[in-house]
């Protein structure tokens, strides 16, 4: 490993100032669970890492507003989210997802902001957060902005963040009658990186879908909404025939990429099967918790 500088700023402003916007080898590090893998693999060789460790306390919080909107500080470790009663009440799909997201040692250290900024398409949280309609607050040298998680992820390990912008907060809107499920399909152990991730959020009335969000991950370059499949679902009655058409649309629409966890044709078939299962599971009659 080549030597690098490690700096530990005490404030957000200082952290942003220490990141050179022109240099891809200078990067912020939060929990480090993702970045360290890249460094070990030799594909990221930093000249300077800006540790956000000292900002941990200021950006570690989970709060639910009276409106039902949930706010999670970017430095909140995944295990704190997993154990939060607010998260369990407001978005139980996140808590269920955590149980198979890597292992407890990683979840104790990895932060939610880091998980989103890393841009790895194999991660479990981005598809779930997109299905929940979540957004992030971002701070940079030129001020603050907010962005939907869906727009944050722009490609394989690529995000819409400028190099010297940091995610400060995750915001999940009140879900109302929406029910969300996430299916993680692994080719190895249960907590392995997925070969495919599918998240579906549905609102329905009397068996008819009134609102739908469907997201595929791990098989694509980034967590991506399946818009055609969503449009076919809205207004439809969920039955075997509809599910077949929707699953077909999902498998056709996704731009699937092969990796070590499966060929493109295998992953496409997985998507066809699990898109239908996820929609069924997100319907109230399935008995699955919302």
């Amino acid at each position: 490993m080549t030597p690098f500088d490690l700096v530990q700023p005490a404030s957000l402003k200082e952290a942003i100032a220490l990141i050179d916007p022109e240099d891809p080898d200078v990067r912020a590090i939060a929990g480090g669970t993702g970045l360290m893998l890249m460094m070990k693999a030799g594909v990221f060789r930093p000249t300077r890492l800006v540790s956000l460790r000292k900002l941990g306390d200021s950006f570690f919080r989970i709060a639910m507003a009276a409106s039902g909107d949930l706010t999670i500080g970017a430095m909140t470790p995944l295990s704190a989210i997993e154990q939060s009663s607010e998260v369990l009440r407001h978005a139980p799909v996140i808590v269920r997802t955590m149980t198979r997201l890597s292992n407890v040692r990683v979840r104790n250290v990895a932060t939610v902001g880091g998980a989103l900024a890393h841009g790895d398409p194999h991660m479990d949280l981005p598809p779930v957060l997109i299905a929940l309609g979540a957004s992030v607050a971002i701070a940079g040298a030129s001020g603050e902005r907010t962005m939907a998680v869906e727009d944050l992820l722009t490609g394989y390990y690529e995000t819409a963040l400028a190099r010297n912008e940091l995610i400060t907060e995750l915001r999940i809107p009140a879900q109302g009658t929406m029910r969300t499920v996430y299916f993680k399909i692994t080719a190895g152990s249960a907590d392995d990186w997925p070969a495919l991730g599918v998240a579906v959020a549905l609102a329905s009335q009397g068996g008819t879908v009134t609102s739908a969000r469907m997201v595929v991950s791990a098989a694509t370059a980034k967590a991506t909404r399946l818009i055609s499949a969503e449009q076919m679902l809205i207004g439809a009655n969920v039955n075997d025939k509809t599910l077949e058409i929707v699953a077909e649309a999902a498998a056709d629409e996704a731009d699937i990429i092969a990796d070590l966890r499966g060929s493109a044709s295998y992953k496409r078939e997985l998507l066809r099967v699990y898109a239908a299962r996820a929609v069924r599971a997100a319907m109230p009659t399935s008995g699955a918790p919302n």
Partner: protein
Amino acid sequence: MNIAGEIQVSAAREAVYKALSDAPFFASCIEGVSDLKEIDPTHYTAVLETRIAYLHFKFKANVEITELSPPEKIEAKVEGMPLGIVGRLTATATTQLVESGSQTIIRYSIDATLTGKLGSMGEPVLKSKAKQMEKYFTARLFAAFAGGGPGSET
């Protein structure tokens, strides 16, 4: 994994073939290629560097020209050893030149296999980079032919 595409050039097929079969010119059209060395007229070594987001991939590549059928086909085998990451890239690249009036259509097809740790990361990288590299390749090729063809100044 297969990456394929077409590039249309306003030049005669013979001229395009001549340009593409010239290894230094061909290498200059691929973004990130450096240190091209000729071992013999059908064997070359080169270094390929590419960046995606904050990730950096560097390969030492051995290139073997396996078929030269003027003026319509060039086939090459590439073996790449990534620097700093475990794995191997093997690829067969076929380029076919088709006449279309006064223009030439370059049809390329690359069958690539990535093994080792590179396999889990490399394919999406190649796929996302492919379009960008095609754009760069096309721009360089067009620039060369706009100037009367590569090497025309000599």
